[in-house]
């Protein structure tokens, strides 16, 4: 009887830990995804600016990056966080990703209109990096 109870406790603990790491892992992988998208877009835009790439390739790369970042956005919105710490982690990650999506959308509109995108790559990347660190460090 006692071993049975211990097993249940262990299972519950494991589930709780899994739930906890679920938010962290979810946030981290969404941040990864958005970060990869932003860096792709930045590379595509820079190559275009240096005259090494064609307009359709740049436009497509930005489109694809925006799609990926939006997927990350909806991925993080779907995470249910039960604790205060988890909520903070998730919200901070969501803010950074929202920013990334906005930036990518602006960049895509600029490229579609034939302008050079005036994107603030450094700031957004730094924000994503900060959120990623916060995900890893939170108690």
């Amino acid at each position: 009887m006692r071993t049975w109870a211990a097993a249940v406790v262990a299972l519950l603990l494991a589930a709780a830990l899994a739930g906890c790491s679920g938010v962290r892992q979810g946030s981290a992988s969404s941040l990864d995804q958005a970060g990869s998208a932003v860096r792709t877009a930045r590379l595509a835009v820079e190559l275009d600016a240096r005259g090494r790439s064609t307009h359709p390739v740049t436009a497509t790369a930005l489109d694809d990056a925006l799609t990926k970042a939006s997927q990350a956005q909806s991925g993080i919105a779907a995470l249910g966080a039960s604790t205060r710490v988890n909520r903070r982690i998730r919200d901070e990650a969501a803010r950074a990703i929202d920013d990334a999506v906005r930036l990518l959308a602006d960049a895509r509109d600029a490229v579609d209109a034939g302008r050079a995108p005036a994107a603030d790559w450094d700031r957004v990347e730094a924000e994503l990096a900060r959120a990623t660190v916060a995900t890893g460090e939170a108690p």
Partner: protein
Amino acid sequence: MKGLFAVALGVLTAIGGFLDIGDLVTSSVVGSRFGLSLAWVVVVGVVGICLFAQMSGRVAAASGRATFEIIRERLGPRAGAANLIASFLINLMTLTAEVGGIALSLQLASSVAPGAWIPVAAFGVWLVIWRVKYDLMENVTGMLGLALVVFAVAVFLLHPDWSSLATQALTSPVPAGESAGTYWYYAVALFGSAMTPYEVFFFSSGAVEEKWTLKDLAQSRLNVLVGFPLGGLLTLALAACAALVLMPQNVEVTSLSQVLLPIAQAGGKLAVAFAIVGFVAATFGAALETGLSTGYTLAQFFGWSWGKFRRPTRAARFHLTIMIGLVIAMGVLATGVDPVQVTEYSVVFSAIALPLTYLPILIVANDPEYMGEHVNGRITNVVGMVYLVIILVAAIAAIPLMIATGAGA
């Protein structure tokens, strides 16, 4: 001179025919995440497909029987039907990925959304299968697919640190941030992308289409033994490009447009143009091969008349099957599913289904009633058995790895 030309043409076609959306995507994904640490899998896969294609080509030339006729005849109706269903579905999945790949490639050339290109691509594939002669179709797509050589050139233009690339390829480390599970999952995927069953259906049926006799065997062996390894080399170049440009920036490949970025960096607009031509040709060529293979598998299982060398009215159900296959592919793509994702799954399922087609061919290649004196030699059989084990292990490991790693996430 004419003979030399034929050999060159065959080799070039084999290089072009080896590459498809699965190779383009999988090798770039692997390159961006694992660098060249999975290069050994490409070598294993290329040797395997050489062996398998060569064996099924020899069976077709010696006996006049293509792969799925043999599968049905040896495994009987029950195991044969299970095999047919698996092979047909995976083939359909690959066809879907290739048609989607044509659309994605045309998007890169035009910036018109892929949704608009899908019907155009499917219609184009059907028209070529319906009207264009077999060798013309094979040679044109194969030659244009060679434009992908630009990836090999790009590796040089990127001035890599060769010794560190070599170390990566030879010591096969699991990169930091990746688990052993994802490493092996992508090993299976890369293996599946090199050894896709449709290549074998196509190759053996092609031998019948082109009415090969045993005299043509030496040439076919040469085409395969030179062409496929060179195609494998291009796969490695794709991975190296991703490893050199995307991996250091921590960019993970999830779309076809990203595959082009290293090319743009290395060679500029001209190189990009070449790469896009190569993408269109490789995906179009593979769409033709998988499209035909939907017809080949079903027709050969049921004993219907098949083949492009016949006019369509002489192979009615074969052509109807291909049309239905293309309509299904269009329907699947119309749901908005990402062709790149379809590709990532189709290469893994290819690895899972591989033993089903491999074993009957290995057995029949040893059957003197089919092969006469052209049965497998001792060395071929030893290598063949080694590969049977490798193929089985990959197939058995694929599903647990897929579940454990969340399909490589």
